[in-house]
């Protein structure tokens, strides 16, 4: 066997050292992404929902949502006279498709502002209407929901 003095290895150590630094940086970014996903910043977790409202009503809604995935809205009215009226604006309809409502609305009608749903509620005390929606696509959706005349301005980031 012939002695090996120069195996003519075309090593670019300078590039490799730079790449290792980039690689470690990328691992750090992926770790942050993983942590963000764990706390719900990529949708479907702890920080992906928020509650707005006052003492009379509240809306739990998704602030971060993935496109083509389903999410829930919960509208709770504290005082009601056996029924409640929820009004969704056009921006809501453009960004979300309602796939289910519980309880089912007793009636619905279109308005110049959007669409309204009337719900019959039984018993005294707080009642909750659950609405399941599917996001249309990537967007930062700014929309409004009016519950018995009280308006909530909401914003949801829909991820690709």
């Amino acid at each position, binding site marked *: 066997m012939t002695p090996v003095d120069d195996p003519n290895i*075309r090593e670019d150590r300078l590039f490799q050292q730079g790449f290792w630094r980039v690689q470690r940086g990328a691992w750090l970014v992926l770790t942050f992404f993983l942590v963000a996903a764990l706390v719900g910043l990529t949708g479907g977790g702890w920080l992906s929902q928020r509650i707005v409202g006052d003492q009379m009503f509240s809306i739990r809604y998704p602030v971060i949502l993935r496109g083509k995935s389903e999410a829930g809205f919960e509208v709770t009215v504290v005082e009601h006279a056996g029924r409640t009226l929820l009004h969704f604006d056009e921006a809501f309809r453009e960004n979300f498709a309602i796939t289910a409502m519980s309880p089912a609305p007793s009636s619905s009608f279109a308005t110049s502002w959007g669409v309204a749903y009337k719900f019959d509620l039984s018993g005294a005390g707080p009642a909750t209407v659950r609405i399941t929606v599917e996001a249309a696509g990537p967007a930062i959706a700014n929309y409004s929901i009016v519950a018995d005349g009280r308006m909530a301005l909401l914003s949801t980031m829909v991820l690709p």
Partner: protein
Amino acid sequence: METVLRALAIYFALLALTRISGRRTLSQITVFDFVLVLLIAETSQNALVGDDGSITNALVLVATLVITDVFLSYAKSHAHWIALIIDGTPTVLMRHGILETAAMLRARVSVEDILQSARTQHGLMRLEEISYAVLETSGNISIVPQPKEQ
């Protein structure tokens, strides 16, 4: 249009992720690596295909992936920097019989990995019998034995 963009996005994202995961995941594949590859393939399938399960969509996807691959192989042969970014560069792990421990640590290659390659390629049993160990761009570890005494 959307199918082509989707295929390109997934292709380059997976390419980048595979590159930054390090070369060891391609070579010396363990059971864990094999499971990882299977899961990545299964996970990316939905993102690649989307809601369209038609034959046309599948053909557009395959055509996009094949043409991108061919284009990249041409680009690599014409521009050295593209080859460097996509394939990387060989890394010397052992030079003139001396281990380059910093490079081994960075490349996540152990002495046992080098010895395993030495046994497989040349039937060598000891580190002293190795002159050069090189982590190739393919992920394999090449072993050059010490010259034999006359």
